């Protein structure tokens, strides 16, 4: 598959297909990710929000398992408890990559968004520029960190640690085009069973600005239930309006400034 993203042409984009209907919430992915990438502990805070004690992705949590409880008192059998392993989406149009002023954030040969830790200077502008709230600056290292899609493992032909450790194959790693075929088949299968499922990050409304996601999901409910934005924005699209408004004001004040100094001169 050929894709043009940020001016880079790649032959085979590598990514994740995360199937929420298969996740059992074991958090093996979280642990494997922490271990392989040598990420520090997040402490032992208990949130009381189901079994989710990491709450969200952060600079030291690159896989995060969300636990969504939906109880139905009237029809108890209709209750469900869903687990979803969230990760950096490795967008086609990545807000963090566009915002990075040092060029530390690049698109690597696997078409994934990678933060070069030795180039990043921790300006933190990628953080509010990520439409999914993924990337964050870590205090100890002073640089922005997020999922690398196990760039180091991929270079050695290995699959990322989270996908390797997933006992139910809820996390699949592979070529994005092949993963999409599998995902479509899975959706067809589940729909045939009467389940209401959809893909997030392939061709829905969520891809309008950020483009297709290299890490996409199969979800059995609306995206916001899993803390995924239904319509993620692409910050660079706001620039033309912002620059126009700002520079017009600067131009107007230049005219005022010149006018005032000239006008007074004539009056004298």
């Amino acid at each position, binding site marked *: 598959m050929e894709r043009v993203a940020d001016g880079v042409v790649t032959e085979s984009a590598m990514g994740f297909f995360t199937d929420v209907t298969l996740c059992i919430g074991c958090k093996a992915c979280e642990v494997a990710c922490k271990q392989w990438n040598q990420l520090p502990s997040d*402490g032992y*805070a208990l*949130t*009381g*929000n189901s079994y989710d004690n990491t*709450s*969200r992705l952060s*600079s030291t*949590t690159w896989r995060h398992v*969300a636990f969504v*409880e*939906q*109880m139905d*008192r009237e029809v108890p059998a209709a209750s469900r408890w869903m687990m979803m392993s969230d990760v950096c989406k490795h967008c086609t149009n990545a807000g963090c990559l*566009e915002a990075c*002023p*040092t*060029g530390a954030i690049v698109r690597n040969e696997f078409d994934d968004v990678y933060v070069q830790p030795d*180039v*990043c*200077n*921790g*300006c*933190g*502008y990628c*953080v*509010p520029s*990520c439409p999914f*709230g993924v*990337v*964050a*600056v*870590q205090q100890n290292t*002073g*640089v922005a960190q997020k999922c690398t899609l196990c760039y180091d493992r991929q270079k050695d032909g290995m699959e990322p640690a989270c996908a390797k450790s997933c006992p139910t194959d809820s996390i699949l790693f592979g070529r994005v085009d092949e993963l999409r075929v599998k995902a479509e088949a899975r959706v067809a299968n589940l729909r045939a069973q009467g389940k209401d499922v959809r893909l997030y990050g392939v061709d829905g409304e969520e891809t309008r600005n950020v483009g297709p996601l290299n890490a996409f999901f199969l979800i059995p409910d609306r995206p*916001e*239930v899993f*803390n*995924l934005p239904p319509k993620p*924005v692409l*910050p*660079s699209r*706001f*620039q033309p*309006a*912002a*620059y126009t*408004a*700002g*520079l017009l*004001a*600067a131009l107007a*004040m*230049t005219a005022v*400034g010149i006018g*005032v*100094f000239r006008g*007074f*001169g004539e009056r*004298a």
Partner: protein
Amino acid sequence: MDTEKPSQPHGANYGAAGNFSPDAVAASMQRGDGGFGRDQETYFDHPILRKAHWRWEIITYFFVGGAAAASAALAAFADLYGEERDAELVRNGRYTALAGSLVSAALLVKDLGRPERFLNMLRIFKLKSPMSVGVYALVSFSTVAGFAALDQARADGIIGWNPFGWFPKRVRIGILAVSAAFMACYTGVLLSATAIPVWYTGRRHIPPIFVLSGVSTACAAQNALLALFGGSPRTAKKVETIALIASLAEAALLLDWERRAGDAATPVFTGKRGSRLKTYTLGLGIALPALLNLSSVLSRKTPEKHHRLRTILTSSLALFGGYVLRETVVYAGRDSADDPRAYLRHPE
């Protein structure tokens, strides 16, 4: 720095599926399902977006950078289009522009997670990144502000020889015009071009408001300097006129932003932060100095001497108001990022 601990949920809402908004609670009461509905709006109210870590360093940088850019512009206007007696403004403007740009650079470096890697920002230029554009605006602005200050120091007899005296003045003014315009407006663009709802929905207002605030604070600073170091009252009157126009336009844009953005801009205009903005920026920072300056601007006569006390007072108020403006807009971004519903409600 963003403390990277798991964010604490809003209260221990065990089993309540996080729907704690009054609407959601009312809906769940009606269903009688204790909140375990199928209409979850969010995931335990956890933020979808991540807030910027920016604190006083960046707020002060936005404030000082904008004022420095406008000070340099004032000095240039006075130099090119002014009279002999405006020389004091030219001198003060040039020196403060250089001082401001140096303070700006120091603040920007201090704010980095790895300050020793500041120069990494100069290894590439990226039009798509306002941070990159801004760094180049700052570097080119400081350079030409430095040249102008050296020229001034040579003219003032502080230095006997200007190593950059050969640099053509026309080129210097050209670079100054472009870089000062970008210095004044890019900070607003920097905020607008993010995924934070209160900032991107305000993209048509924040950059011009920051430009106008830069001009009004620069005028306030220059007026105070003129009053303190004996500039011509006639020069002060010109500066006051510019300040009046800029600050009134700034107030008009702020009110227009509030009106148009509606609930998208609540983090800026409501609550403690909103009343702080209205008191210190709109009230004491803009309205009061405008009222006090209006009579002197409108009168045909130029006063014989400065109202030193009044100038110091109005200038201080205007400067503080300008700082509060940046602080309010920057910190409102935190509230906006923490509110998942804001992002769901305002897709673009």
